[in-house]
């Protein structure tokens, strides 16, 4: 494990240095959070029929989403992207480590370091002033923590899958823009999944993306009872395993056809 934790440490230390980015991100997230909250308040005030979840839960979901946005696999690892472009990716292959594990460790750093920087202040401020409620119960809090870990592992598997596509497309722009919309919409980041039409619910439940946001967040609000946790974890774990296998296979093929840029 030494090598993988080393690469995680290296990325984590690098990312934690970007204070300006963290501050900028924080401001952006407050801004978007307020817009979402205002939209939902207006929507609930003018709605005539009953809604699938309470407004206070929705507001909590919004703030959790803003706090943990960095965990969502909505982009490739910019460092991997730069390496593939410049050809430094060859150095990655010169290390006596499994490249998939290496990139997964990078993804873990990428999804945790910036998130920690933003989440802590955001949760404190929103918890005190802007309607972010505490977890529904101690059991919900525990379930949330477990599912959040599941979400992190799943999110990293998706991130590495995106990274691997760079071996084909180099720029990664196309895949990222498609992936962004898929992940943001289908995870429940934009609009909580209960608001989607009934006929779509079975699909949303089966897809991996709900495991990223919907599962942990609604366990937090108690919207999903803590007793459902085992099923939720199983869903996350199954998809994580599948995506890891897919990522490995794809990486193997990508490396075979690799021609290192820049001579």
């Amino acid at each position, binding site marked *: 494990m030494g090598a993988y934790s080393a690469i995680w440490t290296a990325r984590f230390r690098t990312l934690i240095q970007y204070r300006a980015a963290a501050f900028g991100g924080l401001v952006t997230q407050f801004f978007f959070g307020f817009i979402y909250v205002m939209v939902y308040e207006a929507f609930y005030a003018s709605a005539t029929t009953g809604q699938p979840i309470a407004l206070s839960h929705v507001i909590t979901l919004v703030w959790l989403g803003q706090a943990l946005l960095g965990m969502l696999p909505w982009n490739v690892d910019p460092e991997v992207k730069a390496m593939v472009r410049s050809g430094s990716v060859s150095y990655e292959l010169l290390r006596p480590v499994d490249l998939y594990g290496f990139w997964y460790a990078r993804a873990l750093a990428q999804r945790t370091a910036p998130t920690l920087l933003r989440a802590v202040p955001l949760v404190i401020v929103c918890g005190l002033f802007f309607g972010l409620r505490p977890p529904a119960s101690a059991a919900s809090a525990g379930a949330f923590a477990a599912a959040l870990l599941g979400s992190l592992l799943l999110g990293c598997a998706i991130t590495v899958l995106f990274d691997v596509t760079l071996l084909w497309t180099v720029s990664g722009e196309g895949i990222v823009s498609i992936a962004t919309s898929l992940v943001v919409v289908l995870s429940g980041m934009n609009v909580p999944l209960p608001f989607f039409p009934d006929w779509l619910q079975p699909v949303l439940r089966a897809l991996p993306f709900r495991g990223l946001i919907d599962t942990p967040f609604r366990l937090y609000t108690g919207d999903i009872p803590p007793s459902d946790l085992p099923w939720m974890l199983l869903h996350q774990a199954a998809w994580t395993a599948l995506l890891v296998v897919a990522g490995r296979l794809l990486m193997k093929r990508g490396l075979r056809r690799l021609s290192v840029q*820049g001579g």
Partner: protein
Amino acid sequence: MPQIVVENLVKTYRVAERKRGTWGAVKGLFGRRYRTVHALNEVSFTMESGELVGYIGPNGAGKSTTVKILAGILVPDSGRVEVMGRVPWKERIETVRRIGVVFGQKTQLWWDLPVGESFDLLRDIYKVPRGEHKRTREELIVLLELESFLDVPVRQLSLGQRMRCELAASLIHSPDLLYLDEPTIGLDAVSKLAVRDFVRRRNRERGITMILTTHDMDDIEALCTRVVLIHQGRLLFDGRFEDLCARVSRERVLTVDLAEPDAAVGDPDAISVTRTGHRVSLRFDPGRVSAAELIRRVTARWTVNDLVVESIPVEETVAKLYRGLSDGSL
């Protein structure tokens, strides 16, 4: 048993071709034409443990491709390669554990982290025992004079400082084999000498096998007894560097400083004569006229204050060689 065996190595790339301009880019969206480029064409050589071989050739000759195949990064189309008894691309992880690499134009250090931290991270990645790592690290820091900037992030180092750090980083796990890909590119004279001196000492004292690719012929002259020359993916020469130069040209130059300028200075056996004021240079082929004979003739007819006999500069010889390669005259 040789440490590196390369037999009939072939590697081709498919390069997408695109017409120039915007219209060409638009057309490229719909259909692409590919051209096959032979990066390596039936290349064979072997290397013994402890050798320091210069691997030269013009840009695009296939040098880096070879190094990348030897390091297990690229998979060749065909041919046999064994590095320390292993096929590098099949047993990449085991092979690279004993290899160090410096790519002069890339970095293996963490751009935003202090150099010292990069060394520690490499220790963890290569699982070097702490005691051993401490010893190697201290030694490299002293030899390469890194002490003063160990705490500086890599991005703030000068190129010369960075290259010394790259060298240290490539050796932190005490590899048996080192690939140096243009390690002196862009360095000033002092840094070049420092790098060369260090490389030579590591090779002699530790017996590390090294492959050096470079365009700097002074590197080759200073470090390598054996050179391998490739051009357009084919191996053209494998032997002593002097022999390669001799094959291109044996010409030498006699330069004399005359007491009185005289436009008539010359000799029937000189290939060419250049005059600048008091100084006259005669290019000659020692096969046709010996240096001693030429000096005798010149000093007999003119009063000479000073004289020197030189070989053609290596750079010039190699330029001639490369030009000869591309127009097929060699």
